[in-house]
């Protein structure tokens, strides 16, 4: 007989675990499942299923306004995520070499925007951009999105960097690699999984953003979430469900890619 019964310590063996887990998953996914289900409705209702069809997806792909907004969103997310990743990498490289107290302070400054209510950031950005005369539009969106993407990109990058053996860079220096080659040949390749997940996280956050985008987007620079919201005001049809489902699919794809990269690296 085992000295300690490890089975009884496993949370999965507690009574009611299965029910609790099922309810929790249902709570998380039921609304999304309903959304996806009604996107296939053959009727115009979003609460009564008449039959199944692809018509609303066809409508989405035929809608030039949606295509334009989606293109804006993707372009914006790619630019914002890329610039944010570069800046976050620079911050992470500098901060990992700092002394503990200064690093804690820098970390707090960098991550504080995550705690600020987004509506506050949105209004602040709006007021700031109009007072410096930048106006609304794609340029303002790029700057604002880059800004709020930095802390998201920073977290996976710094996690990867701190788990790296600092002796690796010392070893590269010892073996005659100058600073730039140490960075490109050793640090950067080893940092790659962190960079990719940081970029993907920033991309998703930018793609999904509504509040800031709704304040800063001007005519012609509407993003997809902002456009979906404007569609709602004209009455909800399963077309909204269809375009929303597509966004869910895109997000899930990014999560899966980032999961695969993380698994390959361990």
């Amino acid at each position: 007989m085992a000295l300690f019964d490890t089975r009884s310590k496993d949370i999965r063996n507690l009574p009611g675990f299965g029910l609790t887990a099922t309810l929790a998953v249902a709570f998380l996914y039921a609304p999304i499942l309903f959304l996806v289900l009604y996107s296939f409705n053959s009727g115009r209702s979003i609460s009564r299923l008449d039959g199944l069809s692809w018509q609303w997806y066809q409508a989405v792909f035929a809608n030039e306004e949606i295509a334009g907004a989606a293109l804006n969103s993707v372009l914006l997310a790619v630019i914002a995520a890329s610039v944010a990743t570069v800046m976050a990498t620079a911050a992470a490289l500098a901060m990992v070499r700092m002394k503990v107290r200064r690093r804690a302070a820098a970390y707090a400054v960098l991550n504080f925007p995550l705690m600020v209510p987004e509506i506050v950031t949105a209004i602040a950005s709006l007021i700031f951009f109009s007072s410096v005369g930048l106006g609304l539009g794609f340029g303002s969106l790029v700057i604002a999105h880059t800004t709020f993407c930095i802390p998201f990109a920073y977290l996976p990058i710094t996690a990867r960097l701190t788990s790296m053996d600092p002796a690796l860079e010392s070893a590269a220096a010892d073996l005659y690699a100058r600073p730039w080659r140490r960075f490109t040949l050793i640090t950067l390749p080893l940092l790659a999984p962190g960079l990719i997940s940081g970029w993907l996280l920033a991309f998703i956050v930018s793609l999904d953003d509504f509040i800031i985008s709704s304040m800063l987007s001007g005519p012609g620079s509407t993003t997809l979430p902002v456009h979906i919201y404007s569609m709602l005001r004209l009455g909800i049809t399963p077309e909204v469900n269809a375009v929303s489902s597509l966004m869910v699919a895109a997000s899930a794809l990014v999560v899966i890619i980032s999961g695969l990269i993380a698994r390959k690296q361990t």
Partner: protein
Amino acid sequence: MQDQEDACRLTGLGRTYGKGVSAHRALDRIDLTIRSNEFFTLLGPSGCGKTTLLRLIGGFDQPTVGEIAIFGRNVAGLPPEDRPVNTVFQTYALFPHLTVAQNVGFALRMLGRPKAEIAATVARMVALVGLEGMEHRRPDQLSGGQKQRVALARALAPGPKILLLDEPLSALDAKLRQRMRSELKALQRETGITFVFVTHDQDEALAMSDRIAVMQGGRVQQLGKPEEIYEAPANRFVADFIGGANLIPARIGAGGAMSEGLGVVPAKGDLGAEVTLAIRPERLAILPAGLQQPGDLGPLRVTERIYMGNELSFRLEGASVPLHVTLPRGGLRGAQDFAPGDSVCLRAEPGAIRVLAS
């Protein structure tokens, strides 16, 4: 003559961390000369400054004061990539995304050597450490001992003038460590490169080194050949750290040193001086108290018998400090055996008692 040249000369070398009251003097103005072609070991407990000293020679850290000359050239202020020294790191620090061959050839690639030369050197180094056939593996597909060999080959590939080794055997299991000791020593002889080896393991140091610097508190406590360090420790710290010794407080009197419970021990010194007597546990014979002669230590009482396979050890009380005696098993001396409670005396081999200033 190459052999007469000094590989590394340290002059007044000091390294202080922090400032003011919290300042910590990791190295306290060390003067040390490491000769060419020697296997030189820095030995000491953790925090003694041995790793700091190695980092200063490697260029990973800069001294607060003092000079470092490598083969006559002052290297103060130079980064690691400008020093003709290579390092085997404690964690090996193999590049995980590169193959064994790429790791070993890294330095030569950085130095811009032709591809053919790199390939030839890599093949030679891989053969030198016995890793033929593993060239295309990545570090995570290697065992601890194999990683160790790759780290060695990688550091030796550019042909350093001095090889620095930072506790390279500490991550290996006991058996492998034994074998790597002989291999390292053989490698040093074959290549003729000066090895500077850092360890806290006295057996390792004694077994491999030409000379040892025993360090403690940022200072070199004793510098010498393994025999000198072991047989003639310069002070209490060295006697205790290397091999362990019975350290007995005593006062020099007429005819010898007087120590509580031990009578008069044959020892020389200034009359009335407070001293420490250092006696190695294996240089004492243990006899029944009835056989005590003048000059023997005792009578003492056995309080513990510790059987260790090849050795038998006794703990004895009756003096001002508990004493230890170690006997080999088998042979003449090994025939002796006692049990706790027995009354015994100790007879030191001639020259076994060292008088240290206390």
